[in-house]
């Protein structure tokens, strides 16, 4: 299957996530203004833009941390604009944070198990007694976490407290915890920020694996243009809260407004 074909297939399907005319102001500052975009099912979509462009604000609205002033955000056609973060997570949108946000006092495994939270059904009492169905459930969840641990090659770190891990590993554990939710859509806020080249390549490989092997739609905020252009099916460009471009990586790199605002005026496609 060629890249062009797979993209066409993906575009044909109805978008899994739509953002429509979304705006958000903080006091007098407009963080996001009338932004619309569609995320095709199964795609890797990147949102790029200079610092302060409103990328993270957009992500925060999708995951329910901010409520948009206007506009609608929909997952598989259902509006999720007014839902709380915990409800949105339960609907199948997982996210990571720009600054690593692991539960540092807990082990890698416990962090992943917390990712399973939305799937846990056993009641307080039965799970407190670790008995009957609760026990079965616990074992099932543990198995899913073990799959992810293997998937991300974290086997040796299961019982380690996350606070003691290296930066790159913590980012990977955070990805794993988001995966443990078994999300339909995975929002990654600068997953490669602050990483060296090797770590970046590892992370890019993991993101691709997540997308291809596990069929998860990925929305990525990232500054490394090389990575973005390599792995994205679609790229959206924000500048000062507005969407100024969008399309395939090739299209985006040719858009004059984008080149001017973000990629540098001389030529497109380079590292920034």
């Amino acid at each position, binding site marked *: 299957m060629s890249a062009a074909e797979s993209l066409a297939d993906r575009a044909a399907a109805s978008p899994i996530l739509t953002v429509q005319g979304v705006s958000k102001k903080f006091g007098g500052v407009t963080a996001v203004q009338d932004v619309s975009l569609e995320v095709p099912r199964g795609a890797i979509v990147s949102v790029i833009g200079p610092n302060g462009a409103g990328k993270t604000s957009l992500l925060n609205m999708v*995951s*329910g*941390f901010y409520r948009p002033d206007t506009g609608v955000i929909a997952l598989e056609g259902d509006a999720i604009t007014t839902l*709380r*973060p*915990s*409800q949105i*997570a*339960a609907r199948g949108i*997982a*996210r990571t*944070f720009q600054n690593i*946000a*692991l*539960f*540092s*006092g*807990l082990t890698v495994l*416990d962090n992943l*198990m*917390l*990712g399973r*939270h*939305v799937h*846990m059904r056993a009641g*307080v009492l039965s*799970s*407190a007694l*670790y008995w009957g169905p609760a026990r079965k459930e*616990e074992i099932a969840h543990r198995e899913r976490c073990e799959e992810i641990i293997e998937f991300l090659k974290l086997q040796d770190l299961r019982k380690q407290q996350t606070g003691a891990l290296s930066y790159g590993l913590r980012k990977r554990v955070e990805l794993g*915890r988001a995966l443990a*939710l078994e999300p339909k859509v995975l929002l990654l806020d600068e997953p490669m920020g602050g990483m060296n080249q090797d770590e970046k390549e590892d992370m890019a490989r993991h993101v691709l694996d997540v997308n291809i092997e596990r069929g998860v739609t990925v929305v990525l905020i990232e500054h490394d243009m090389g990575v973005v252009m390599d792995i994205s099916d679609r790229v959206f460009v924000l500048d000062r809260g507005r969407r100024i471009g969008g399309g395939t990586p090739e299209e985006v790199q040719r858009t004059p407004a984008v080149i001017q605002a973000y990629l540098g005026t001389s030529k497109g496609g380079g590292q920034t």
Partner: protein
Amino acid sequence: MEWEFTLLLLVNGILIGLMYALIALGFVLVYKATDAINFAQGEFVMSAGIIAAVVVAASTSFFLGVVVALAAMVLFSFLLERVMLRPLLGRPIVAVIMATIGLAALLRGLLPLVFGAGTRPISLPEFIGEEPIALGPVMLQPVQLVGAGVSILFLAGFSWFFLKSRMGIAMRAVADNQQVAMAMGINVERYFALAWAMAGIVSALGGVVWGSMLGVDVHLALVGLKVFPVVILGGLDSIIGAVVGGLIIGIVENLAAGYIDPYVGGGTKDFAPYVVMIIALMIRPYGIFGKRKIERV
């Protein structure tokens, strides 16, 4: 004999310390999950004691008294979280502190007004008995043994809850980082309510245990004051810290009463814990087991 006297003081200190730990646990649970400092912890204990004493006297059933006190305190904590504290979410921590101080004053005034200000006993069921039990050279009050036993049971139970159960781990996650917990699909408010309900449970138990030992009136709330040396020594957010802090304060208190009181005419028991607290604040302000970030509170 000298060593027997010391042993008596130590054993007494340990038993009392465990009972302090139980009350401190209520404080720690709330702080751990919600970052709120509950200055009304002593008044919770007092309220539970009064309710238990009234019900036990009216029904002559000790267990009914315990059950009613438990139910009342859980309900009360639940409502408190919903009505008074949730609207304060995201406000400066001082707002919550002032709210709990106000609540403390309210409870100290209101409960005696409703139930009368006299000192009431909580009579233990007969099988516990009143005869001191001899453990080697040390004579122990059955009340204290029961109190310490209940404390150990619940301290162990809550430790297990936080270390092993998935709700406990979720609660630690909430305490660690509320935003991320939300992104994991954890309903943070529900865990806040749960933390307060658990504080209600230990307050009810503390009220019954302390009430049956000291008798129940407004002064029972003073036990809550001893919680501060305990948790500051042990660490505001640590269950094991509550236990160790409780034991240290209990032992210090008894040793002071035994060895210093005879020279100064009494009363050292009541301030020795605070001396320890001040020393702890100077050396290790976040407590023996506390997380260092607590320094900024």
